[in-house]
């Protein structure tokens, strides 16, 4: 059976790749990390079939690992009730002791559910379960799987069913979980990252989805040049990239509710149609986008040195830029704050 990870660029049709593999016969399990992407995929499935077919099961990652993988084999025996997402396990408890995985209130540490399954070899039961009930398994946003969860998805490759992981290395903006030094440098080097999949007998495909449908050639060229992230466009048309300095122009864009304003963080401090860079991942409905550059990023922007941003900032910026289907505007956050109309709105 095919086991493959497809690394794609933004807007190249990752979701479509999954949706196109679905029918009303095969038992398909689709796992996403974020809730917004779960919703996005559900909408796409409903759009394809007109309803949510019974043979297609959609899970967010933690619902999947807890309800589908952990509970059937451990719930009664281990005697747990739910997941603790907020605290990190104490380093005091040794591996394979209860406290290593489970808090005093009998809740599993979210970062160690995968570790529990691996350490106690429940993973074999999980693999058997998937072999029985699934014909194919899809995991989206694979780049966000970190630490023990990354080990878990490698272990899943033991299944005898079709396995397709999709993701975009450069859109790595979150981690499913962190656990000390476990896989700490996983995302440090793209090539080594790919090697980890290969070691787990998963074929790495970096060519199928190398071209973006969403972003025009102009945008793709800009990203390749300035962020030094490889991305090509399937399109031949061009778009506009504009750095706004004129106060009137800034006001127009700021007030235009057809243009989303994407902020590094705390977008809610501005009274406009806005979001944070990292939060718009997986979204595909913006015609024009205005990226607001925070001070650090702005300095790098001016110096033509965007590719040397901290990796997580760079990835978020990449996500933000690639949301646009047509035009892209840059505004310096400083300039935005100085703008009377805007700051007036902000202070209200």
């Amino acid at each position: 059976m095919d086991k493959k990870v497809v690394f794609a660029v933004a807007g190249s049709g990752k979701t479509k790749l999954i949706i196109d593999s679905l029918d009303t016969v095969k038992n398909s399990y689709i796992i996403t990390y974020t809730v917004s992407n779960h919703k996005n995929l559900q909408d796409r499935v409903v759009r394809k079939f007109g309803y949510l077919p019974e043979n297609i099961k959609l899970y967010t990652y933690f619902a999947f690992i807890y309800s589908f993988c952990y509970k059937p084999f451990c719930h009664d025996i281990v005697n747990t009730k739910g997941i603790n997402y907020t605290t990190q396990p104490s380093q005091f408890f040794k591996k394979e002791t209860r406290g290593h995985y489970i808090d005093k209130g009998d809740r599993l540490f979210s970062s160690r559910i995968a570790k529990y399954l691996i350490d106690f070899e429940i993973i074999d039961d999980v693999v058997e379960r998937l072999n029985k009930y699934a014909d194919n398994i899809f995991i989206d946003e694979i780049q966000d799987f970190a630490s023990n969860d990354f080990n878990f998805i490698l272990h899943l490759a033991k299944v005898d069913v079709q396995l397709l992981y999709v993701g975009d290395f450069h859109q790595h903006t979150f981690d499913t979980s962190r656990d000390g030094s476990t896989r700490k440098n996983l995302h440090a080097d793209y090539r080594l990252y790919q090697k980890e999949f290969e070691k787990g007998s998963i074929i790495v495909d970096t060519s199928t989805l190398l071209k973006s449908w969403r972003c025009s050639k102009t945008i793709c060229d800009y990203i390749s040049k300035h962020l030094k992230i490889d991305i090509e466009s399937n399109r031949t048309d061009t778009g506009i990239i504009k750095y706004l300095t004129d106060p009137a122009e800034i006001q127009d864009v700021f007030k235009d509710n057809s243009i989303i304003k994407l902020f590094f963080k705390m977008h809610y401090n501005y009274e406009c149609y806005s979001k944070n860079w990292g939060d718009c991942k997986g979204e595909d409905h913006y015609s024009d986008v205005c990226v607001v550059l925070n001070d650090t990023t702005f300095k790098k922007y001016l110096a033509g040195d965007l590719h040397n941003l901290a990796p997580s900032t760079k990835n978020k910026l990449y996500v933000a830029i690639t949301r646009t289907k047509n035009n892209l505007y840059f505004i310096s956050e400083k300039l935005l704050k100085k703008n009377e109309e805007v700051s007036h709105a902000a202070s209200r």
Partner: protein
Amino acid sequence: MNHILKIKLFNFKRFETFEVVLDPKLNIIVGDNESGKSTLLEAVDITLSGSRHKVEAKGLENLFNATVISDFLKSDRKYENLPELYVELYLSDQFDPDLNGKNNSDIKTCDGIKFQCQPNHALGKEIKEILKNPASIFPFEFYSISFTTFSATAYSSYKKYLRHLLIDNSQMSTEYAIKEYVRDIYSSVATPLEKSKHQNEYRKHKDEFRKNTLQALDTKLDGYKFLIKSSSKSNLETDLALSENQINIENKGKGIQCFIKTKFALSRASSEMDLVLLEEPENHLSHINMKKMIDLISHADNRQILVSTHSNSVSARLDLRKSILINSSSTVPILLSGIDEPTAKFFMKAPDKNLLDFVLSKKVILVEGDAEFILMEAFYRNTYADELHNSDITIISVDGTSFKRYLNIANKLGIKTAVIRDNDGKYQKNCIDNYSDYAAFTNIKIFSETDDLISTFEISLYNKNTAICEQIFKTPRRTLPILDYMLTNKAEAAYVLLDKKADELSVPQYIKDALQWIKK
């Protein structure tokens, strides 16, 4: 067909632990009164229903094993020793991941569902406080009731993994029971969607009646209006009845009611049903209807059936091999599935026998005729100066030729069985060669006179007690030799001996031997 593979009970009513593997089609649960036949059906019914309401209506104090509760109260009452209760139904593979997992007491990955009552640990502190008081009663109110699948997914009455119907013929004909039954039948044939539609239509019709017919009266009410009630106490399901030939079954005899219900439950019309639970179908039925009922049950092959019965004949005539015996003194069921076909078929056709007594016993003496049966108690008393019923030995009188049928069962179940028979003038042939197949089994032994001349029990008895027999049976007008008289009036003669000279009778040696062997 989806069906139950295995039932496991823990602290449920009289069963502290109990486990039984079921046949995919027919299962006949046989047992004495109070043996737990109905309990088994009740456990299955509760678990499949997924209804917390049903459990609350019955009351946890009535479902928990009484011994376990009282033992706990007598103990040091440690919180961690609070007993729990569960019923597990292991199901055939339904290819549903929600059913499949290891959350069962076998700790085996399989399909199944579970009904469980545990202390509600969120209230642990309060429970501890209560237990501290030595005069406190058991804290049932602090227990939580859960219905979960083996994958640890909760289910309720809305989600049915196995569609079932319970026909309780022992509690028939109360208005409530009939309503409940009709509702069950309705639910088993109507999908949830249809039910919603029907309820809606019914309410609409009621309202139309109010508008079109009843409303005319409202003018006389001076501001008030008549309404047709629509609530949980008056709706489609409460108004529904079942009729046959335009007669509401409520107005038919109890026996016929049972019959109709069973017939319906087993018919193909209710094809959505996976399992039928039949509680004592023999109740209220005439012999003829009983035969028809047995016919019905044995021909229903499209679903799993669990029948509870205290009738020998129901069990034997349906198929002994599908019988599960529950004994009131032990909690281990005895399965008769290993019995060979000719033996099972023999008991299907043979006249009603005390087969149940036989299979539920540990030690049995099989005798050939009524005479031996009548005198055996006296023989025992004269030999051991004790009453037979104080021992756990059962005496069963069988037709001489069918000893081997019983021995086949004794073999399967390991029942210690002594056969006491006549040699009929051919000791070697009748009593040795005839049973050569059983010679190797230590739990079976044949006892008879070895002298071909002492061919029957009566000759042996007469030889041993000549004086007594001569004295009792001698009458002025009797010309027949006494022995011949005894041979032609076997049961009558035995009865007279028991009545008049029971204490003085000497016991024939081969019977003594048999008693000594079985007693060991």
